[in-house]
């Protein structure tokens, strides 16, 4: 058992597997995004109070979900690497970080754009917004810390500790609307509306979330392949498959 696990965790074994999976997930991402965008921007009815601006929700909510979820996945990989000392884990964490940062940024940006028409300001320092901003800084800190070490092994381990430390922030983001009185929406606003409206909105949102998922997997796998190549360039198997 243990041996199988470690073999799966070896970059050499993972490299071709990842290569095969990338196109599939890329395809799925497009396959979910197209109907999702169509439903969200053409089928779902105009909101009574917010007008058309509410349609940002189809970008905003999936991005916000992914930003938190990817952080947990990243911290999970990093922690695994710290405990089991597998090389691949650190590479996976590195591969996920930029995508996570991107989604965090998109969530912040789309939220800000949305805030202008609804709240009358694009930014307030409330608990959810602040903790989401901290999430962005944590991603950036993780990337910066890893880049600051010349030795990749050491970078992996230091990065893993930071990732685990920052994981505390994720539940704070999620529950902040309950813990503090804030301007930001609580969960499930859409579910309390008229059933038909909620159904299309929910479908569009879920499709977009799935698309974001698939996109994240595809990009992370593609990125981990180039990280593997860079880190293991001196190893025999890379040189052989590169034909030199």
């Amino acid at each position, binding site marked *: 058992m243990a041996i199988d696990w470690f073999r799966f965790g070896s970059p050499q074994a993972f490299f071709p597997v990842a290569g095969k999976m990338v196109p599939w997930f890329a395809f799925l991402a497009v396959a979910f995004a197209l109907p999702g965008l169509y439903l969200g921007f053409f089928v779902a009815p105009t909101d009574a109070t917010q007008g058309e601006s509410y349609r940002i929700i189809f970008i905003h909510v999936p991005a916000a979900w992914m930003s938190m979820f990817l952080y947990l996945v990243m911290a999970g990989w990093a922690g695994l690497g*710290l405990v089991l000392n597998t090389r691949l884990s650190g590479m996976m964490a590195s591969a996920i970080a930029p995508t996570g940062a991107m989604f965090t940024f998109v969530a912040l940006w789309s939220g800000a754009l949305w805030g202008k028409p609804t709240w009358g300001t694009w930014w307030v320092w409330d608990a959810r917004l602040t903790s989401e901003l901290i999430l962005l800084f944590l991603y950036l800190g993780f990337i910066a810390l890893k880049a600051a070490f010349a030795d990749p092994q050491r970078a992996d381990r230091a990065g893993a500790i*930071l990732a685990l430390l920052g994981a505390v922030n994720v539940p704070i983001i999620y529950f902040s609307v309950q813990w503090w009185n804030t301007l930001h929406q609580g969960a499930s606003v859409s579910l309390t509306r008229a059933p038909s409206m909620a159904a299309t909105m929910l479908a569009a949102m879920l499709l977009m979330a799935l698309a974001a998922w698939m996109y994240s997997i595809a990009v992370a796998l593609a990125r981990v392949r180039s990280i593997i190549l860079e880190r293991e360039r001196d190893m025999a198997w890379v040189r052989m498959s590169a034909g030199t």
Partner: protein
Amino acid sequence: MAGFALLVRRDLRLALRRRGDIVNVLVFFVIVASLFALGVGPEPNQLRAMAAGVVWVAALLAAMLSLPRLFAADLADGTLEQLLVSPQPVLVVVAAKIAAHWLLTGLPLALVAPLIGLQYHLPANALGLLLVSLLIGTPVLSLLGAAGAALVLGARGAGVLLGLLLLPLYVPVLVFGAGAVTAALAGIDPGAHLSLLGAFLAVSSLVGPWAACAALRVALD
């Protein structure tokens, strides 16, 4: 326990040997506080509104400026190596470092903060609250700071990198700490802020030392 006391005593002695680390922190604090007033403007009302923020930012800076050396000197001269092979648990070593750091930065700052508050025209109840919020909040700065300082050991440009890692984590402390005082000024009950600060202290006293220990082991591997 003997090990903890020994290590705290060593750090305090090293700091006092320079006849001034604590004095430095205090003078530094005063300078930062006046600097802010200069940078923003002299209106008494505006001053009162920002007093807590300024005191807290100053505390934060004093902590940050002293953090890069928390482990670096011991790493360079080989002492850290000895601390790790010694019979003392690493957690005790880290806890002692954190305690010494707080005694040298957080505590003096907390004690002198009411004086600064006076200069900023804060009323008495707000002054007391400022002190309490600092006493709860500054240990968090040392706890998380130790983790950050251990993480950047051996990395280049450690100073700025440390700022980058720590400032976002320090933000909530700042918000709740300053928030408690501002709430009191506005006549709102500051209890919520203080309890959040306390929760933060609890979480960081669990997470901070653990992360620092792990990071030290990595740095010396």
